[in-house]
C-alpha cells in the first residue's frame, strides 16, 4: 500500500516536473490579478491596504480554482483514470496521493508568493504571518473539497464552470474565516478563533475527502 502511494505521488511529481512551466502559471496569474486591481480601482494607498488581505485571498482561491479542473482531466482523457479505479489498491489511497501532489505543485508556490502580493497591495506587518497561516490552512482545505467536486464532474465533459458553480458556495465559509482572521489581525483584534475553525475543518477533510473523492469517482465513471 505504501508502495502504491509512493508510486502515485512520484508519478504526479514527475509529470509536474516535465511541465514545470505550468506550475509557475498560477503564480503568474495571481501576480497579474493583484496587479490589475490597482488599475481598476486607482492607486489609492489606504483603500488598497484596507482591501489587500481580502484581495490576496480571493486571488489565491481563484488561481487554485483555475487549475482545479485539471486534477483528474488529464487522467480521464488518456484513460489512466479507469486503470487507477481498476487497480488492486484502495482507490482512496491513490486519490490521496494525487491530492497531496496537487497541493504541493499548485498551492505551495502560491503561498510562497502571497506575502509579496500582500506587500505590493500594502498589507501591514502584524497581519502578514496571519495571512500566511490562513493560507496554509485554507489552501489544502480548498484542494481537498475541490478535488471531491472535480471528481463528481469527471464524467461530464463540462468546462471548469460547473466546478466553479459547485465549489464557490462551499468556498464561501473558508474565505469568510480566512479573511476574518486576517481582518482581525489587521485591526489588532484576536484572530485565533477563525483559524482554529479552519484547522478543525482541515483535520476533518483530510480524513473524509479521499474517501468521498473515491466514491465520487466511481459514481462519475459508472455510465
Amino acid at each position, binding site marked *: 500500500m505504501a508502495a502504491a502511494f509512493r508510486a502515485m505521488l512520484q508519478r504526479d511529481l514527475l509529470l509536474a516536473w516535465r511541465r514545470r512551466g505550468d506550475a509557475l502559471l498560477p503564480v503568474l496569474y495571481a501576480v497579474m490579478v493583484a496587479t490589475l486591481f490597482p488599475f481598476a480601482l486607482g492607486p489609492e494607498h489606504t483603500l488598497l491596504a484596507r482591501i489587500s488581505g481580502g484581495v490576496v485571498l480571493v486571488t489565491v482561491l481563484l488561481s487554485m480554482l483555475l487549475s482545479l479542473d485539471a486534477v483528474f482531466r488529464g487522467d480521464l482523457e488518456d484513460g489512466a483514470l479507469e486503470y487507477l479505479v481498476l487497480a488492486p489498491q484502495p482507490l482512496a489511497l491513490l486519490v490521496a496521493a494525487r491530492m497531496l501532489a496537487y497541493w504541493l505543485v499548485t498551492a505551495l508556490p502560491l503561498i510562497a508568493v502571497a506575502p509579496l502580493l500582500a506587500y505590493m497591495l500594502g498589507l501591514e506587518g502584524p497581519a502578514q504571518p496571519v495571512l500566511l497561516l490562513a493560507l496554509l490552512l485554507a489552501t489544502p482545505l480548498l484542494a481537498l473539497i475541490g478535488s471531491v467536486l472535480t471528481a*463528481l464532474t469527471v464524467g461530464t465533459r463540462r468546462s471548469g464552470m*460547473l466546478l466553479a*458553480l459547485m465549489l464557490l*458556495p462551499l468556498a464561501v465559509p473558508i474565505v469568510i474565516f480566512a479573511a476574518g482572521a486576517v481582518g482581525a489581525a489587521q485591526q489588532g483584534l484576536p484572530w485565533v478563533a477563525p483559524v482554529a475553525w479552519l484547522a478543525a475543518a482541515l483535520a476533518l477533510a483530510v480524513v473524509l475527502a479521499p474517501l468521498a473523492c473515491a466514491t465520487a469517482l466511481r*459514481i462519475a465513471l459508472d*455510465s
Partner: protein
Amino acid sequence: MNAIKLWYHKLGSPPYFYVFAGYIQPWLWTIAAMLAVAGLYGGLVLAPADYQQGDAFRIIFVHVPAAWMSLFIYGVMAVSAFIAVIWRPKMAEVLAMESAPIGAAFTLIALVTGSLWGRPTWGTYWTWDARLTSELVLLFIYLGVIGLYHAFEDPRQGARAASFLAMVGAVNLPIVHYSVVWWNTLHQGTTVRYFGPSSIAPSMLWPLLAMTFAAKFYYGASLMQRSRVSLLSLERGKDWVADIVRREPTHG
C-alpha cells in the same frame, strides 16, 4: 412494520408510483388552492395593518412560507439523496432530483420577496448579512445540484452524482437556520414556534399557517407531477410506458 415495508416496496416500483401519483395529485392541487385562497384572503384583507410597518408586513405571507419551504425541500431532497446514493432505488433518485427545481423556485421567491420587504423596513434591497447570504448560497447549491444532474448523459448516473453533492451541501442548512442566532444580523430572529407561545398576533398567525400548508401541498402536487414526467422518460424502454403513450394520444 410489515405494512410499511410493503408500502415502501410498492411505491418504489415506478409503474405503481406513476398510478399512485396520478391518483393523489388532483387532491393535492385542490387542497393547496383552497388553503392558498383562504390564506391570501386572511392575509391581504382580514389581517389589520401592522402598527410599525403598515401594510408592508403583508409580504410575510409569501416570504416566510417560501423561506421555510426552501429549507424543508432541501431536507427532503437530502434524505432521498442519501437513500439514492446508498441503496440506489430509482424512486429516491427521481424524488431527489425533481425536488431540486421546486426548492430552487422557493429559494428564489424567498430572496426576491425578502429584498422587496427589506427596502421599506431596512432601507435597502440587499446587504451582506449572514441570513441573506446563506440563503443566496442555498440557491447556488440548488443550482449546482440541478446543473450537475443535467451535465451527465445518463440521467441515473447524473442523479447519483447530484445526490452526492446534495448530501455534501446539506451542511448549509443549519447555517441558514441558525445564522440569526450565531451572528448578530439585521434579519429578525425566530418568531413563530411550533412548540410554546409564538410572538405573533393570531390574526396574522392563521393566514401565515394557511399559506405555509398551501406551499407544502403545492410542493407535494408539483413533485408528483414532475416525478410522473421524469418516470416516463427514464423508463422509456419499458412496456408500461409504451402502454401509457399509446393510451394518451391527445396530450400534444
